[in-house]
């Protein structure tokens, strides 16, 4: 029998502990196990030949010289893949995508052939020896061109496709919104382009596919954020039975949504392995990653706010055109063609709204939903905060005050947005107040005025938003027909140590550290006594992976639920050990005790031992269980980001003075890790606003397909961040946590852009498309005109 627990939750690494990361031990020693680190006996290497042109008929492919190179084992073309029904594959958005081009190439960088050889150098030699004859066709590089009446049909492979429209979508109440606009005193309009970006984790995509003819089992080590989705997709595409496919996602060098889709390279590697009966490794290079894998954003907005003179927003409406590239391959819940873009304006009390959206096929890589976007919420919140800034300016109102008037108040929860979302909690005004105090708002406005007298341009930008995380409940959310729950399996061993597996897949978020903290919180088992594994479909319970900041809200909840199931059984064991009935047993961290005699208790470890060696009659032995969590609702973190900048009017260069971030993501399991996520997101917000984008010239040549042109900020440019915290627990999550991984990438960019435009407020410029490169800022200042960044550009 044990004495009173006196366990310190922080001391055992429970909820709220900034526990040092378990993962670090191997990463700092260079002992990570990333896909390219894996070597299997007999493994061969695959390289992909990509199209140099954006839109062309393939007249001929001559692979004869490639086959002659010593060390080349297989040269695969679209024609060969077609013989096995694998030249095309279904996408996660119910379209089809070419695995290897057959009739046409439809974007620069598209996969045309692949070569398998003894080593990657030889495989590359093989690719260089393939001769392809192309007959160029006109290229389409933006939706306007795509929807023009005389535009060439890009998807002439699809029966019944008579134009370049990919989808059309609509939500909201048009009639009520039109009425609101008729009654408006002021209508604020804004059009902008959220440019194409790319998640670009440092590690590129890759796979080691190993089909064993002896066992007929396919094992694929793959850079994937969602191994079970991949297994389902591979079963579909390769027509192999699901139980004979094992997907292993080892250490992943960053995901950010780039590693969710099924890429042609994976399919080719699998097919080559099946054909050759040996393991085949495919690791793409950075150029391949940037030019062909799931990009992000590329959305055009035209929108308006209906305003009352006192500052109240009466209604909102906008149209969004998305550039989907050559194939509709977005990884997003299947009912939502444009993700959760209709979560825009959820933090504001607006009675009515209407959104229309249309997707276009273009001659570019497929994608759109990626890069910490929470399913297009980045686009939604960017447009929201940009038009909020414009509206405040139109009304001649202070932008903080304008937000204060319109933000949903604490007493309004639960709040139904005009587009059907239910937000359940938040302290929006409080976060705004903390942000304004931290940046010393009034003082900055005085400094700005003073600086203007000396010709210096200072600016301040605010961005406030709540965003939907934790997709999602089974009524509305599915991918490929599979509901978006998640899972956890917990096995407590006889000595009270444990192993936990979930259906999520960490790519740097620290699950091995934080999930153990949840177990510590629920069971009082020290976090260090819990090992966490993810990513192997043979051992992990079925889950939908990690993206859209869904892990803490869904998988984390499953961890809490399974731990509670374990605790419920342990309670019975405790009653048995203490020789009392269950109703007389109380719980405190790590210990059950008799209510009327608190000195008499048993530790959770003693219960674990009893589960294997001293069970009550009739009880199943063991202390292991699993849980599948179907979230009742999305979670709704809130953030307020405030940025101050100084703009050099002669060069257009702008420097960040300060970045203040106030994040309310509910209960924080590991504050250190939460802050790391916020800083990572803020950096991406800075990157997108300052230098980072992909664009195209009129011929469809991609500008931004390598790190010379696709600019990621270094430690030198990246500003410092001041982080603040508010905690409004999520009312439906078992731990009150909301998730945070993407918040800063979602809300951050508008703060930077609003700040620069505020510095330029005397010029009358209303919009500069991101990234606000020095030359664009200068053009705006000099011309007094808005600056668009939409393609085509001069290369």
């Amino acid at each position, binding site marked *: 029998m044990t004495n009173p627990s006196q366990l310190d939750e922080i001391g055992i690494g429970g909820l709220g502990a900034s526990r040092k990361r378990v993962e670090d031990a191997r990463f700092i020693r260079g002992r990570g196990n990333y896909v390219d680190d894996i070597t299997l006996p007999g493994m061969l290497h695959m*390289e992909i030949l990509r199209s140099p042109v954006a839109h062309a008929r393939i007249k001929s492919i001559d692979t004869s010289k490639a086959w002659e190179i010593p060390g080349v084992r297989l040269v695969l073309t679209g024609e060969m893949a077609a013989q096995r029904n694998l030249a095309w594959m279904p996408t996660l958005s119910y379209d089809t995508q070419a695995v290897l081009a057959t009739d046409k190439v439809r974007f620069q960088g598209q996969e045309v052939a692949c070569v398998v050889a003894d080593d*990657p*150098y030889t495989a*590359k*030699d093989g690719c*260089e020896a393939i001769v392809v004859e192309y007959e160029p066709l006109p290229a389409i590089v933006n939706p306007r061109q795509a929807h023009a009446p005389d535009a060439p049909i890009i998807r002439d492979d699809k029966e019944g496709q008579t134009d370049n429209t990919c989808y059309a979508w609509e939500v909201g109440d048009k009639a009520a919104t039109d009425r609101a606009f008729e009654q408006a005193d002021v209508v604020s309009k804004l059009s902008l382009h959220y440019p194409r970006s790319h998640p670009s984790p440092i590690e590129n995509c890759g796979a080691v596919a190993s089909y064993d003819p002896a066992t007929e089992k396919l094992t694929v080590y793959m850079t994937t954020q969602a191994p079970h989705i991949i297994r389902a997709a591979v079963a579909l595409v390769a027509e192999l039975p699901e139980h004979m496919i094992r997907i292993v996602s080892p250490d992943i060098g960053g995901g950010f949504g780039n590693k969710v889709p099924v890429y042609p390279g994976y399919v080719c590697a699998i097919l080559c392995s099946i054909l050759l009966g040996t393991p085949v490794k495919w690791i793409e*290079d950075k150029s391949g990653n940037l030019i062909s894998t799931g990009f992000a954003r590329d959305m055009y907005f035209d929108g308006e706010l209906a305003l009352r003179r006192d500052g109240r927003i009466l209604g909102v409406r906008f149209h969004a055109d998305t550039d989907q590239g050559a194939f509709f391959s977005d990884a997003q819940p299947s009912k939502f063609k444009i993700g959760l873009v209709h979560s825009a304006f959820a933090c504001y009390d607006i009675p009515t709204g209407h959104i229309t959206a249309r997707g276009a096929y273009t001659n570019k890589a497929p994608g759109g939903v990626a890069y910490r976007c929470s399913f297009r919420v980045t686009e939604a919140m960017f447009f929201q905060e940009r038009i909020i800034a414009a509206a405040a300016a139109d009304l001649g109102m202070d932008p903080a005050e304008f937000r204060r008037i319109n933000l949903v108040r604490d007493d309004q929860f639960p709040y139904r947005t005009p587009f059907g979302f239910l937000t359940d909690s938040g302290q929006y005004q409080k976060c705004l107040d903390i942000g304004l105090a931290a940046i010393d708002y009034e003082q900055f406005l005085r400094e700005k005025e003073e600086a203007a007298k000396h010709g210096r341009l200072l600016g301040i930008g605010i961005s406030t938003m709540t965003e939907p995380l934790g997709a999602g409940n089974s009524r509305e959310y599915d991918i490929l027909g599979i509901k978006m729950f998640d899972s956890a399996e917990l096995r407590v061993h006889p000595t009270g140590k444990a192993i936990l597996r979930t259906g999520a897949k960490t790519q740097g978020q620290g699950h091995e550290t934080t999930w153990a903290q949840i177990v510590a919180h629920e069971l009082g088992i020290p976090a260090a006594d819990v090992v966490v594994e993810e990513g192997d479909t043979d051992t992990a319970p079925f889950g939908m992976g990690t993206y859209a900041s869904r892990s803490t809200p869904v998988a984390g909840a499953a961890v809490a639920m399974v731990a509670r199931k374990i605790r419920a059984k342990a309670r019975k064991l405790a009653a048995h050990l203490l020789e009392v009935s269950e109703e007389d047993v109380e719980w405190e961290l790590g210990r059950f005790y008799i209510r009327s005699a608190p000195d008499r208790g048993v530790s959770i470890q003693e219960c674990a031992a009893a589960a294997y060696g001293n069970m009550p009659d009739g009880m199943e032995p063991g202390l292991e269980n699993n849980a599948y969590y179907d979230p009742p609702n999305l979670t709704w973190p809130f953030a307020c980001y405030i940025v101050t900048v100084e703009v050099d009017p*002669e*060069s*257009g*260069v702008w420097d960040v003075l300060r970045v203040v971030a106030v994040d309310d993501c509910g209960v924080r399991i590991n504050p250190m890790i939460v802050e790391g996520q916020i800083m990572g997101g803020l950096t991406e917000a800075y990157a997108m606003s300052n*230098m980072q984008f992909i*664009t195209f010239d009129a011929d469809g040549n991609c*500008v931004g397909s390598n790190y*010379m*042109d696709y*600019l*990621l*900020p*270094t430690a*030198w*440019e990246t500003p410092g961040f001041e982080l603040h915290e508010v905690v409004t627990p999520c009312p439906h999550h078992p731990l009150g946590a909301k998730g945070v991984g993407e918040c800063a990438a979602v809300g951050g960019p508008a703060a930077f852009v609003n700040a620069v435009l505020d510095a330029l407020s005397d010029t009358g410029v209303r919009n500069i498309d991101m990234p606000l*490169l*020095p*030359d664009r800022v*200068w*053009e705006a200042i000099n011309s007094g005109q808005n600056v668009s960044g939409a393609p085509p*550009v*001069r*290369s």
Partner: protein
Amino acid sequence: MYPARFRYEAPESLGGALELLRTYGEEAKVLAGGQSLIPMVKLRFATPELLVDINGLPDLGYHEVRDGALEVGALCRHVDLEYSTGLDRWPLMASAAPLIADPIVRNRGTLVGSVCHADPQGDWASVMLALNGSIVATGPNGRRVVPAGEFVTGPFQNALLPGEIAIAARIPVPTGTPFGRYLKLERRVGDFATAGVAVALELAGRTVLTAGVALTGVGANNIKVVAAEQVLAGSALEPEVVEEAARLAAEAAQPRTDHRGSADYKRHVVRTFVTRALELTPVAV
């Protein structure tokens, strides 16, 4: 990411290197820092038959005054210049060195190699033009010294004759009080210059004895703005002189409109940076 095949030799003497170049001619490329050459070879933009690695040649890593000029050996790395304590009389070089590429690339890349590579967005060529430097080449016909302006003959083209190696750069010792500044507009560390400006002055009291002005990234090659130099020489950097020099520099620039900006923008940056560099001079009004 995977180069095509090539042969490789690492001679241990200058004579050995020259012999290889004589034998292989155009098919051979000299490998010094390799921070421009190897990336091109990896992407198969360059497919030489032979790489002649000169990193083993002795006594080429120096930078010091020899025979009345600052001489920078072919294996003197950017980082050596960045942390040099011997560049007091060449402040333009001290100003430019930290802005080349990024810190790790600077450990290997060389000034001489950079000038030979003749990338119009390369920074050192502008420095050399502004300082009236030259390249020392050696080859079958012995040693010759080629002024920087004649050494770079076009984008990625230099005046080395078949069989020649550039073994050093020479920069004159200033007679007056030297001032120099390199201003580079880059979107981020490691990016090529949107526009770069090299300004070097020799002063006697408040008077400019000689001036050097050269531009990066705004033409088919780096541009020496002789007109601006002439306007500055003999002046006391009066505001109207500074303005005229800046105007002439902008006029001499031949930028292309591309994804780094319009031609007008780049000219404006040139004008702004020349002005700012001159205004940083201790004697500027």
